[in-house]
């Protein structure tokens, strides 16, 4: 009954070290939370049609860990992992995030869900320790051509030296 088209994600860079992703979803927040924290469901959307998700582990408790791995089309593997810091079911989830290609850079992710009229606004704030790490994270969102992404990643890594 519900039409789901809700427009595209809005990505902003509120400060030098942060990324914010926002999107409205045509579902109540408890379902969004479920889709965000249940491995079988995460497996259905996290890959963004860019590859196959090979690992999706979620130990949803404070101090518990998560790990997502995808083999992108072209064979390149990308992995992320982290630890849950704060859990308010259906409302807020704070976790650390490490992009395994740049293991030194740890980000803090804060998911916030707000519901109005059965629709949910999902906001993910990613806070990095440095601008270089933030930029490297954005570069991990590869779309066209893995090599291009790798080049950028390498640049970002070199700039950390």
């Amino acid at each position, binding site marked *: 009954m*519900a039409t*789901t*088209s*809700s427009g*595209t*994600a*809005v*990505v902003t*860079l509120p*400060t*030098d070290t942060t*990324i914010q*992703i926002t*999107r409205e*979803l*045509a*579902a*109540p927040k*408890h*379902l*969004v939370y*479920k*889709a965000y924290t249940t491995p079988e*469901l995460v497996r*259905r*959307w*996290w*890959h*963004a*049609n*860019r590859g196959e998700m090979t690992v999706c582990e979620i130990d949803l408790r404070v101090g518990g860990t998560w790990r997502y791995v995808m083999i992108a089309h072209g064979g390149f593997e990308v992995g992320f992992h982290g630890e849950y810091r704060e859990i308010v079911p259906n409302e807020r989830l704070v976790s650390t995030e490490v992009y395994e290609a740049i293991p030194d850079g740890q980000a803090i992710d804060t998911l916030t869900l707000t*519901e109005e009229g059965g629709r949910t606004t999902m906001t993910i704030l990613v806070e990095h320790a440095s*601008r270089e790490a933030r*930029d490297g994270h*954005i*570069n991990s*969102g*590869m*779309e*066209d051509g893995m090599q291009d992404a790798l080049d950028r990643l390498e640049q970002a890594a070199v*700039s950390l030296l």
Partner: protein
Amino acid sequence: MARAATTTDAFNAVAEPRRRQILDVLAGGERPVNELVEALGIAQPLVSKHLRVLREVGAVHVRDEGRRRLYRLNGRALKPIHDWVSRYEGLWSERFELLDDVLDDLKKEEDDGDDEQRDGGRDAPH
């Protein structure tokens, strides 16, 4: 040590919040310096300093009209930033489209499995 000076690329130029503010104002059209000073509410020398950085990376263009200096946005210089972020945005947009399908299924499941549930009151404290 080997890093480039902070003013040499558009990415660095727009990393400074005041400079982003200037670009926002200029997005509305060409402006003389005094109007930028007014819009930002900071001292003119500071505005001029930021404008210099933006000019060096080509993010703004300047021309003289009589005694006034007019600044305008040069979107072309900012395109690399737009392209860069939109790639990441594309990733998330696609994720959300897939998430839409998942949520549709969850809503159907919930409706099928819980026909008795009444509208409203879902946010009631418990």
